């Protein structure tokens, strides 16, 4: 198992290099001049612009620029500086925490609501509750985050306060600790909740049809035990993969939610930096996201072995 983890981490290196190179090239190919952007509406002084270009290696060929960047990351753990000379690591530090809080809140909601509703629907297949849950998930999938975000912000953040007088859900920002993440977390998790509900329902329904469930019933076990122990343990296995892969998705896909609720996370930062063509920041953020993806996937694979004894890592 230790060897498996090491092998997985070694495999992550080419993935990381490939992903960063790709992003570097894409940002390079964007139209516009980052140095000109520093001067706002004014015309940049050609001499100063030239000095800055030289300082940030902007006159060098693409691959050489990339090499300056990636060697710094690998050998010095230095993610470089943006064009205002602020270290990228410093820019990301607090923002990463905000996005992580948001993504984890969303993931927890997804796990509780999605799995809960899915199990409930599977055990009442064909009944009213099941149909209602399925219709609700369909609605949740079809409405874009942009809509659910603004609607919930208005209803829960603004109107609820006007009606009750109590500030239950903050409208925006992160000043209220965990409470400020509840509504954005739900908005971010929305579509995933719907998918996970459907996945859970299918998974449990399929498990309940399997031979070993028939055996468990034939053993004279109470229905509670047949479903709660024998079926559930098997039905959970595919859900773990989905949840693990979704953590990366949630962190990377938080741009819209962060903008609506004014959360200063890396999604927001990424959006700004792409505008300013700040390669080091964009690549730095993406590198972190790729790392999260890789780690989340590895944890999922390891959890697999815990849940399903048929899987062994040598």
């Amino acid at each position, binding site marked *: 198992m230790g060897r498996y983890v090491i092998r997985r981490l070694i495999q992550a290196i080419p993935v990381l290099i490939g992903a960063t190179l790709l992003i570097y090239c894409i940002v390079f190919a964007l139209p516009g001049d980052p140095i000109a952007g520093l001067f706002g509406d004014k015309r940049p002084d050609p001499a100063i612009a030239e000095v800055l270009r030289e300082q940030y290696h902007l006159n060098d060929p693409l691959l050489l620029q990339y090499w300056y960047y990636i060697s710094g990351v690998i050998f010095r753990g230095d993610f470089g500086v943006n064009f205002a000379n602020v270290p990228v690591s410093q820019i990301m530090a607090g923002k990463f925490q905000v996005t992580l809080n948001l993504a984890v809140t969303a993931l927890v909601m997804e796990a509780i609501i999605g799995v809960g509703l899915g199990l409930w629907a599977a055990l009442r297949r064909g009944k009213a509750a099941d149909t209602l849950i399925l219709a609700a998930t369909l609605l949740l999938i079809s409405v874009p985050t942009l809509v659910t975000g603004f609607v919930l912000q208005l209803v829960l953040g603004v109107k609820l306060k006007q009606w009750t007088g109590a500030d239950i859900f903050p409208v925006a920002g992160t000043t209220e600790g965990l409470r400020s993440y509840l509504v954005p977390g739900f908005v971010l998790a929305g579509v995933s909740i719907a998918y996970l509900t459907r996945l859970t329902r299918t998974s449990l329904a399929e498990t309940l049809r399997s*031979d070993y469930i028939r055996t468990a*019933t034939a053993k004279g076990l109470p229905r509670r035990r047949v479903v709660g122990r024998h079926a559930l343990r098997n039905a959970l296995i595919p859900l773990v993969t989905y949840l693990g892969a979704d953590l990366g998705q949630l962190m990377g896909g938080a741009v819209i939610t962060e903008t609506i609720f004014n959360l200063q996370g890396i999604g927001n930062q990424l959006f700004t930096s792409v505008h300013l063509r700040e390669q080091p920041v964009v690549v730095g953020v993406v590198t972190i996201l790729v790392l999260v993806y890789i780690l989340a996937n590895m944890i999922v694979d390891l959890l697999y072995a815990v849940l399903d004894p048929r899987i062994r890592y040598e």
Partner: protein
Amino acid sequence: MKKTSADVLPAGGGSGNEPLLAVDDLHVEFHTRAGVVRAVNGVSYTVRAGETLAVLGESGSGKSVTAQAIMGILDMPPAVIPKGEIRFKGTDVLKLSERDRTQVRGERIAMIFQDALSALNPVFTVGWQISEMFRVHRGMSKGAAMKKAVELMDRVRIPAAKQRVHDYPHQFSGGMRQRIMIAMSIALDPEVLIADEPTTALDVTVQAQIMELLAELQRESQMGLILITHDLGVVADVADKIAVMYGGRIVENAPVHDIYKAPAHPYTKGLLDSIPRVDQKGQELYAIKGLPPNLLSMPTGCAFHPRCPYRQENCVTDTPPLYEISGTRGSACHYWREVLDGERQ
């Protein structure tokens, strides 16, 4: 106070002449979108303590559905039991509440399934699965139940039971897995054991070992054994009597030696003739002509008539009852005499 199976049903041996288990005129239907499938149409059979009944028939003949109805593990709906009784020691288990039924299941009547790999839960150790019987039904502690599991694994002759009790089903061979299935089913000394094609998924040498083990366990505990199979070779050695099923009905029942000597139903005769024999090497193998009946649209009259070499006009219109040939033998064929005499028309 928790109800035990002794509160639900009388303990001890069957009273007087009443057989241990009696299936009486059982009907099972499946209500599907395509229509009503009549899987079992009035099946009756009995098993006494220490007796082995072999239920023979091809896929779709209703033999497994009958067994699942006895166990009470049919999915209802879509399954419906419109008619019939299943009497265990005189009590109709179909009339018991679901709660009482759970007490009978596994404890008094147990079942072995065909494919032990899919019938055992892949994510729990075999010891956990066997010992669960003692923990749930007897309220034993984990340790004591696990000890019992090791004893049972020894009893079904799994080598190194003490070490292997913590292994998972996929770590065993097919034969060993079926032994685990058997150990689990006999854990609580059931009075009736239903084995649904217990050897079909195994290779021939292992088949013989498993059948031997079942026969031995039965001798020790005087269980009534219902052996569901389509393998006539398996039946000859271990069964006391045979019930042959076709299209959801019993078409012939008889003591085992009678059937092998002279079948009294054309279908049974066809089955026996289709066993490959060494002295017929080089000749074409015999097969019953035609296909098994479609359960959605059963042939009128005798369900076997489209495939029957003895067919007469009335076979198409009149459903034959189970004619009594002797006290222990019956055949659902209008022309059982001709079949018995071996004259092919």
